[in-house]
């Protein structure tokens, strides 16, 4: 299941929900908030989601992963709101009998989520500026209020 979370990710809870007695492999990915972007110090960031469509599109990606790979289960949870350096921004988990399917599915899910799900990231830099990632030419130099 694809979810959005306005609070800290509870990864041990999501992991527990994926458990399956048939499974021999669990592969997960966590995306963390790093303190730099293109060499520029980052202090914090915010994620904003178009929730209705994000949940639908995220759900479709998980369905595709189930069709493409021999999975028993897969899930993804993405943060919204204000995040600090080191916080988990996204978690993906994939469970299968053998490791190949779980590795491949985990990679597929995170790659698709990053380019298809309507979630936006705003970075706040040490120099006082802020900007929406991938919209550099529209807002990167808007002064942080």
């Amino acid at each position: 299941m694809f979810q959005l979370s306005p609070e800290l990710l509870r990864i041990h809870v999501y992991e527990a929900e994926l458990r399956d007695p048939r499974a021999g492999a669990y592969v997960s990915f966590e995306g963390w908030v790093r303190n730099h972007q293109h060499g520029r110090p980052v202090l914090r960031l915010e994620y904003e989601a178009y929730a209705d469509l994000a949940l639908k599109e995220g759900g479709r990606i998980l369905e595709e992963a189930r069709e493409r790979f021999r999975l028993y289960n897969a899930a993804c949870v993405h943060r919204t709101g204000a995040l600090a350096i080191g916080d988990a921004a996204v978690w993906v988990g994939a469970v299968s009998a053998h490791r190949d399917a779980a590795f491949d599915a985990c990679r597929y899910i995170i790659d698709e989520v990053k380019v298809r799900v309507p979630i936006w990231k705003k970075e706040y830099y040490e120099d006082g500026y802020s900007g929406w990632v991938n919209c550099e030419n529209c807002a990167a130099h808007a002064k942080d209020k």
Partner: protein
Amino acid sequence: MKTVQVQYYAVLREQRGAGSDELNTEADSLRALYDELRARYGFSLDADRLRVAVNSEFRDWAAPLNDGDTVVFIPPVAGG
């Protein structure tokens, strides 16, 4: 003339200065509606860099605009 709802996110929300609008428009396509709003609010992004959704599903830019639609223009995404 039709009445539509528009929701704004991320950079478009900031440039609009609001999260949503209800507006009357003569625009007959999603592209025409965006161009109308871009002219009004000075959105920096060209439509070619956006996707568009109607009633919570992705749509083609050439799709017709219908009375009562809820439209969302989707700037380049950056999840993960």
